[in-house]
């Protein structure tokens, strides 16, 4: 099942065109102390803020069953690394690209939710994350101590990859960060916006009781994404069966 193929293609073009792009193989054995689940970084302890509410921020999770569409085990940074930042705040884009298996109309929504919420399980000392899936925003802070000890894009990306690799149906993970400019993050937002609509359509399908497609805000998205149509048909069948016994 594929929902995000178009977005992944567009993302590839954006990444390939980026001038200040660096990639590293992830180190899944990377060691970083845990924060004990309490990872608030206050301004007075903060060295760097990423994607704060005052600047651009995009966070996106895309999956595909075609592993050739991703570069598994790679962390890519477009823009200055956290350790190279000269300011206290940077625009921030984060894309988690997953190669998965066994996704179907029956499980895609639940699995996508679980994968999206997995980001909150990342527990790195001196790293704070606040995110709003609905708005595809992610706001992170890195403490002075963490930055001094070397919390870099490579460490963060490798830790995220290790986290997602624990999920049985995830076969490969690639991470792409953007800190280059407000313009680039905004462009990333434009490119990944269709994936946000697809997720919103899945949320609506999962929560609604009837399937009145003629007046639905997501009609166009469902019309375009084959997988969504399949999900909707499956949910409608299930709904009919429960009504008619």
């Amino acid at each position, binding site marked *: 099942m594929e929902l995000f193929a178009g977005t992944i293609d567009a993302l590839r073009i954006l990444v390939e065109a980026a001038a200040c792009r660096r990639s590293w193989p992830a180190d899944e054995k990377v060691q970083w102390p845990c924060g004990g689940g309490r990872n608030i970084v*206050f301004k007075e302890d903060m060295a760097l803020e990423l994607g704060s509410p005052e600047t651009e921020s995009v966070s996106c999770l895309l999956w595909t069953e075609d592993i050739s569409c991703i570069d598994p085990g790679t962390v890519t940074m477009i823009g200055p690394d956290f350790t190279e930042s000269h300011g206290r705040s940077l625009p921030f884009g984060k894309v988690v690209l997953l190669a998965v298996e066994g996704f179907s109309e029956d499980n895609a929504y639940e699995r996508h939710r679980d994968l999206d919420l997995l980001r*909150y399980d990342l527990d790195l000392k001196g790293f704070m994350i606040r995110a709003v899936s609905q708005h595809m925003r992610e706001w992170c802070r890195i403490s002075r101590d963490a930055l001094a000890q070397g919390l870099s894009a490579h460490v963060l990306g490798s830790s995220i990859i290790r986290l997602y690799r624990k999920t049985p149906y995830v076969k490969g993970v690639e991470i792409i960060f953007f800190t280059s400019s407000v313009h680039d993050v905004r462009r990333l937002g434009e490119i990944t916006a269709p994936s946000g609509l697809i997720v919103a359509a899945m949320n609506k399908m999962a929560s609604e009781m009837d399937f009145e497609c003629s007046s639905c805000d997501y009609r166009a998205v469902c019309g375009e994404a084959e997988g969504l149509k399949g999900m909707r048909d499956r949910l409608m069948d299930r709904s009919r069966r429960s009504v008619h016994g």
Partner: protein
Amino acid sequence: MADTKILAVCGKGGVGKTSISSLMVRMLRSRSGLKILAIDADPAVGLATALGIRVRKTVDDIRKSLIGDIRKGEAQGGRETLRLLDYEVFDALEERDGFSLLAIGRPEDEGCFCKVNSLLKDIIGDLAGSFDIVLIDGEAGIEQINRRVMKTVDHLVLISDTSVKGLGVAHAISRVASEKKAVDFKSMGLILNRVRNRAETDDIRARTRLPIYGWITEDELIRDFDFRGRSLLELPDASPVLSSVSDMLARIGVLQG
């Protein structure tokens, strides 16, 4: 939240709750290394003003926005909603030199959304756990604090002037807190404000069972700061009222003397 000490400051309107709360913040933030959270639970956001902060967003703004989304059918599942509220509450936190402030805003008035209120209370409680000391400047009664901010506080600090009305409200709050279990607390006591002399305090001490944490005399400088709309954080170190507040905080048990 094991190490976080939570103070709730309550009392009749106009007795000086907000001024005393700001003086407490002023004293606490001068102790380096302590993380202080001031929660302005008064709809008029008087504490924020006294601390020189213009509030951008209140918890109630967040609540109303979410309820609007629910009504439009745009809300997501529980876990996503919790994360959304967490993001928004952290964004509403005003971080300043030595302390942070969270304004609660107006009481809810758009029907019952108990789940949203409950989630918000959980998030505020969780956030509070990252601070050493939390100081809540409440409305007159304690029920609002329970309903809108927190179920448990360590120290319930009742503020009164020397008037019979002020003391009556303080005693009424103490009864609601103790007998009706409006809030869980470990200790409760009284601070007397605008006292003329020691004899007035002794007189009141003889008429109350509440322990008296301390008293503050009428202070021309505070009156002048209020008159000019200056933040009490700017009060000079040598101000005698700060020394009184420091002693009270030590008696309450949140500050070493």
